[in-house]
């Protein structure tokens, strides 16, 4: 549906012939090449840096308390929506942001905000920093989930007994086995980073913006003929993402070749110290940056009069909260109703699929990759097609449509986070129940579901967070009529009052946190008298 308008066909606008005008317009558009390069390189570079940080940390990590503490700090970062992280980072690194304030005038000698373009810089460095902040926790958690099946301790112990330093042992014996398991998440990261919209609107360059943002601008242009160009742009975006993925894949093959020799060259300790320090330091830096970004949001949201370069506001006030709260009731209700509806539907679908598979002893879904398609295909590319399709069958933008499109992204994440626990539950529990004469539906409700309550709630919290963070799907399929906290916050990015933006971004970050806290607390309350249910499960 996005292909047809790209070649000039869109009956709704009276265009029913095929031609290449849209592509000519697109090609002639000033700054297009730069947009394309920005999208391409920001995707590849951020994925590379994020993977580097994660791998180095895992290699350095020895399971000491410091490593566990760092891990524990990273996981909640995953729950924070992209837009909130982007705002937090923007407020941190802006010329009048926290970092400059803390360093001024002592280190810099600046008495007023320097005239520098740090946020929205033309090379997209701020955007890349923001993306890395979100990609690192994602890749780390994906790796941690995949690692246990590789028995990394055994491999490292074996290699160390052959004289390898721990970090090198991990890189040579665990990582080659780990990478195939996290390849899909890495591809998802590249696809996301090449086509991200909300973060690019907040942190990305403006003249020209990244390709995805340009496409969005054309799509929303009052001049409807721009729609053709937008469609062509969406197709191009798909091509750019594909090119980035292809480049990465080629790089993978190349590195595999190059590393064959390194893996078996017998070098046991060179670089080990660098890994041990670098791995921890980099991840710690990422974590601290993200946490200070959030703290910055909190500070700005209650800041009264705040003279540059004071490190802290002179006065504190709740004015911004009071001013904004009455207005956010509707977006808040929309956010929650869409999120809860999508989560509920997704949970029923996913649990039904998994239960069916478990009862009939089916192996893991062969069509699984289809489920992950929405995570790999750039949103810009297929959402526009979806909008065109929906318009052509005259469905008006509405709540149900937003819920439906959120499902595309919520279902894969819910499936990802639940399927492992579902499959790992000892089959004997249900067998015992059945052998006691209980019918399958009772065995499901009274044995399997209670035993899986904790992972199920966590999966629901993940999917709620995913739904809350959605910007483009909500904007496009809601047609502007279903404002959520996320769309409101991003809309304020360009012109907005920084303090009001901080309040919205904080609210946006707070909602997933509430979800995760509930997912942690409910099992503890329900199983207060059941020791094994609190510990294991």
């Amino acid at each position: 549906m996005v292909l047809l308008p790209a070649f000039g066909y869109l009956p709704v606008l009276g265009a029913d012939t095929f031609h290449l005008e849209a592509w000519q317009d697109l090609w002639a558009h000033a700054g297009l090449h730069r947009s394309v390069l920005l999208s391409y390189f920001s995707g590849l570079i951020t994925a590379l840096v994020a993977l580097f940080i994660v791998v180095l940390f895992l290699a350095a990590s020895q399971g000491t308390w410091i490593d566990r503490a760092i891990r524990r700090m990273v996981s909640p970062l995953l729950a924070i929506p992209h837009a909130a992280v982007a705002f937090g980072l923007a407020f941190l690194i802006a010329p009048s942001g926290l970092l400059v304030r803390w360093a001024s005038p002592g280190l810099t000698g600046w008495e007023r905000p320097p005239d520098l373009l740090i946020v929205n810089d033309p090379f997209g460095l701020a955007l890349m920093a923001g993306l890395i902040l979100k990609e690192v926790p994602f890749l780390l958690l994906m790796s941690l989930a995949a690692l246990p099946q590789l028995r990394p301790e055994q491999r490292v112990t074996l290699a160390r007994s052959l004289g390898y330093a721990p970090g090198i042992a991990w890189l040579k014996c665990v990582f080659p086995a780990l990478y195939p398991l996290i390849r899909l998440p890495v591809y998802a990261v590249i696809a996301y980073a090449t086509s991200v919209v909300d973060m690019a609107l907040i942190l990305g360059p403006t003249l020209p913006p990244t390709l995805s943002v340009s496409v969005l601008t054309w799509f929303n242009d009052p001049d409807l003929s721009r729609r053709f160009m937008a469609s062509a742009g969406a197709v191009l975006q798909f091509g750019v993402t594909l090119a980035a993925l292809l480049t990465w894949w080629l790089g993978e093959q190349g590195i595999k070749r190059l590393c064959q020799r390194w893996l078996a060259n017998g070098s046991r300790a060179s670089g080990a110290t660098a890994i041990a320090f670098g791995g921890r330091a980099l991840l710690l830096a990422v974590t601290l940056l993200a946490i200070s970004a959030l703290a910055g949001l909190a500070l700005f949201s209650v800041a009264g009069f705040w003279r540059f370069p004071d490190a802290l506001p002179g006065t504190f006030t709740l004015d911004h909260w009071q001013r904004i709260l009455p207005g956010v009731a509707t977006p808040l209700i929309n956010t929650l109703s869409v999120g809860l509806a999508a989560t509920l539907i997704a949970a029923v679908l996913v649990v039904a699929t998994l239960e069916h598979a478990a009862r009939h002893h089916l192996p893991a879904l062969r069509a699984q990759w289809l489920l992950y398609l929405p995570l790999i295909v750039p949103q810009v590319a297929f959402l526009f097609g979806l909008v065109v399709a929906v318009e052509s069958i005259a469905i008006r933008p509405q709540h149900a449509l937003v819920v439906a499109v959120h499902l595309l992204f919520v279902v894969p994440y819910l499936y990802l986070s639940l399927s492992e626990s579902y499959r790992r539950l000892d089959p004997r529990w249900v067998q015992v129940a059945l052998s006691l004469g209980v019918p399958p539906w009772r065995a499901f409700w009274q044995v399997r579901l209670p035993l899986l309550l904790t992972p199920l709630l966590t999966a629901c919290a993940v999917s709620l967070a995913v739904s809350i963070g959605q910007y483009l799907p909500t904007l496009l399929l809601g047609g502007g009529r279903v404002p959520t906290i996320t769309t409101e916050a991003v809309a304020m990015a360009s012109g907005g009052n920084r303090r009001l933006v901080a309040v919205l971004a904080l609210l946006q970050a707070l909602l997933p946190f509430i979800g995760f806290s509930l997912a942690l607390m409910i099992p503890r309350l329900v199983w207060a008298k059941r020791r094994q249910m609190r510990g294991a499960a």
Partner: protein
Amino acid sequence: MIPNLQSLHIKQMTITLAGEALLAMHCDIAPGEVLTVMGPSGSGKSTLLAYLAGFLSPAFQAQGELYLGDKRLDTLPAEQRGIGLLFQDPMLFPHLSVAGNCRFGLPHRANDKRQQVAQALNQVGLAGFENRDPATLSGGQQARVALMRLLLSQPRAVLLDEPFSKLDTALRQEMRTLVFGQLREAGLPTLLVTHDEADANAAGGPIIALG
């Protein structure tokens, strides 16, 4: 006493995996009798149990028939066969209390559920344990609750999957006496799968060696 006790008949059973025969068996187990099936790991003991209980994975093909008295069982789903299971782990549901575990197996329309549970617990020296969390029980206590849960569900035959292998030696003899005594008293045909000779001796029934 439970009326009309019936034998378990395994008729001309062969189980194959990808065309290759795994095991074959033809035998009868009389009420109150314990048939012991012995064999090293990998000899198909768990496949046999899965077939009898109704959990055989579709990867396997089974021929032959399974009867209790003159009622055919192998065509019924697991929950309608009336075959109870004891595993090497007690498998007490961790989200239910001791009484909850016992009541789980009671038939839906049973009368005096509370009294039946109390009586059953009393029988194995666990009177007053109704509201305890299973996780706070010792291994021997958990095994006894599992046995009573099984008996309360009024099975018509029982399968034992190395039920004593995880108990320590002193407890093992005591549990053997208890389990076999209770099953014999209830007049249930029982199939025991084990690799421990002492289990077979304590069971006192016929022995079949696999593998």
